[in-house]
C-alpha cells in the first residue's frame, strides 16, 4: 500500500460568518482519479483554491507527499507538484498555442531565469511543447494565436499547460464547463486516456454527472461546505442522501434517473 499523494485534514474556510468549506478530510492515492461534486456554492472551488494556494485555509492541514503545504503561495505549491486548471479559461491570449505551453515548460525547467538565450531557438522546449499539444490532440493549432482558437480548444490547451509541469497531482476545475456535447465527449475521452496511462493523479470537479461517473474512481460529495458522502461511483449513485441533496438543489438529470 503506497502513501497518499494528498492528505487533507479538517480543512475549513470561513469568510466572516460564512463557512464555505467545513472540516473536510480526504486522502488521495497515487494514480487515482477523484471527483468532487456538489451543487453550486457547495465549496468545491474554495476547496481547490486552498489546495492550490490561492486562498489560505482558516483551519486544517494540507499535506503533499507527507510535506505540509498549508498556506504556501501558489508558485511554491506548483513547484512542489500541484498543478491546476481554472473554471474560466486562463491562458496567454496574445501568444501562440505552442508558446503558451513553452512558457510553462521554461518555468518548469528553470529556463525562465535565462536572460541571454534566444527563446525561439530553444528546440528542446519547442519539441516538448508540441508533444504535450499532441497528447491533447491540438498540435495542429500550434501556430495559432491562443485567443482565436475555439472555446473547447482553449480548455484543452489549459490542460496541456497543467500537465506540462509534470505534476504529482492535477486539479481540474470543471474541465468541460461551457463545452458543446461533442467537445465534452472528446475531452472526457482524453482525460480518461490520460488517467488510464497511470502517469497522473487527477482531482476533478464537474457538474456533468456523465463525465463524473465516466472518469472517477472515487467521488467526494460536498454539500454546503461539508462532506456529505465519499465512495465509489456506484455507491454515490445509490446513496439516498446524495440523491436528496441533488434532487432538492439542482440536478435535473438525477431527477429523471430517479423517476424514469
Amino acid at each position: 500500500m503506497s502513501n497518499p499523494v494528498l492528505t487533507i485534514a479538517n480543512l475549513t474556510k470561513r469568510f466572516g460568518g460564512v463557512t464555505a468549506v467545513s472540516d473536510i478530510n480526504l486522502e488521495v492515492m497515487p494514480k487515482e482519479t477523484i471527483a468532487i461534486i456538489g451543487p453550486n456554492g457547495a465549496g468545491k472551488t474554495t476547496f481547490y483554491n486552498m489546495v492550490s494556494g490561492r486562498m489560505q485555509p482558516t483551519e486544517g492541514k494540507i499535506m503533499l507527499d507527507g510535506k505540509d503545504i498549508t498556506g504556501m503561495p501558489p508558485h511554491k505549491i506548483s513547484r512542489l507538484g500541484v498543478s491546476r486548471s481554472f473554471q474560466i479559461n486562463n491562458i496567454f491570449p496574445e501568444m501562440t498555442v505552442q508558446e503558451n505551453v513553452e512558457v510553462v515548460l521554461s518555468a518548469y525547467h528553470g529556463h525562465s531565469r535565462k536572460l541571454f538565450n534566444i527563446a525561439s531557438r530553444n528546440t528542446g522546449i519547442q519539441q516538448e511543447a508540441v508533444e504535450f499539444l499532441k497528447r491533447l490532440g491540438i498540435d495542429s493549432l500550434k501556430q495559432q494565436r491562443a485567443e482565436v482558437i475555439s472555446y473547447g480548444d482553449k480548455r484543452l490547451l489549459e490542460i496541456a499547460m497543467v500537465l506540462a509541469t509534470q505534476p504529482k497531482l492535477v486539479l481540474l476545475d470543471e474541465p468541460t464547463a461551457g463545452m458543446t456535447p461533442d467537445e465534452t465527449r472528446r475531452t472526457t475521452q482524453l482525460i480518461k486516456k490520460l488517467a488510464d496511462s497511470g502517469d497522473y493523479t487527477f482531482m476533478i470537479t464537474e457538474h456533468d454527472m456523465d463525465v463524473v461517473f465516466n472518469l472517477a474512481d472515487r467521488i467526494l460529495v460536498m454539500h454546503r461546505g461539508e462532506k456529505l458522502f465519499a465512495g465509489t461511483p456506484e455507491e454515490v449513485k445509490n446513496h439516498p442522501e446524495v440523491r436528496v441533496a441533488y434532487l432538492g438543489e439542482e440536478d435535473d438529470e438525477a431527477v429523471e434517473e430517479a423517476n424514469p
Partner: protein
Amino acid sequence: MKTKVLMAILAVVIAGLIAVPWIASYFYVFIFTEILILGLFAASFNLIFGYTGMLSFGHAAFFGIGSYATALVLIHLEWPFLACLLVSMGASALLALMIGFLSVRLNEVYFAMLTLAFGMMVFAIAYQWRSVTNGSDGLAGFTLGSFGLGLDLTLANPSVYYHVVLAIVAIASVVLYVICRSSFGMILRAIRQNPERVSFAGLNVRTYRLVAFVIAGTFAGLAGGLIAPFLRVASPELLHWSMSAEPILMAILGGTGYFLGPFIGSAAFVLLETWITTYTESWMLVLGIILAMMVIFFRKGLLGTAIDWWMEVKK
C-alpha cells in the same frame, strides 16, 4: 523574406545614422544625439511597460540619478567617461532595486502611484541637498576627459560625441533586445497577459517584476549618464515627474508592442518638437492632439501601424 527586408531596412537606417555628421548640419547632429539617448531611455521603460505590463510613473528617477552620477564623478574624480557610465548604471540599478522592492508587490494603479511618489521623493532630494547636487541650478561646469579603453577620442567634438552615443546606444539596445527575446523575456510577456497563470506555473511573479524593473532602471541610468555631458548639466528637471511622462509618450507614439517602437517614438517626439516650436509656442497642444489620435485610432503606434499597412499592401 520578411526578415531579409527588415534587416535591409535596419542596415540602411544604421548606415544613415552613422553618416549623420557628414551629411547634416551640427544642428541635426544635436537633434539625433538627443533622439538616440531618449530612445534608449524609452526602450528601457518599454521593457517594464510594453513587455511586462507595469506602468511606472517614476522612470525619470533612474534617468536623473544616472545623469547626476556621471556629473559627480566627472567633477570630483575626473574618471574616464566609460567609468562614469558604469557608475551611472550601478547607481540607478541600486535605486531601482530599492524602489522596485517596495513597489512591485502592488499592481496597476497602486504600482503607478507608488512609483510616482518615489520619483517625487528623489526629485525633492536632488532639489534640496544643495551641498551635493547644487539644488535647482544643478551640476554644471564639468568637462569630459578621456573615453577609456585607451581610445583617443575628442569627446568635446559634437560629432565624435554623437558617434560615441550611437555606438553605446546600439550595444545597449542589442543587449535589451536579447533580453526581450530570451526565455526570461517570454515570461515577462506572459506576466503582462496573465500574471496569475504564471504563478500557477511555479514562478514568483514578484521576483520577475523586480528583475525587469532593475534592468529597466539600469538602462535608464545609462541613458542619463549619456545626457549629462550632452546638456552640460545634470539638473533636477531630469528627474522631475514630468520627465517620467516622456518615455510613456514615446513608447505609445512609436508602438509598445515592438522593440524599436520607443526609438521611433523618440524620433517623432524630438523632431516634431523641433519643427513645431519654430512655428508656434503651443507644441504641447499639437502633441496632445497627436497622442489622442494615436490612442484612439492607431493603438499600435507609428511602427505598428506602418508594419500593418505594409503587410496589407504586400497582400
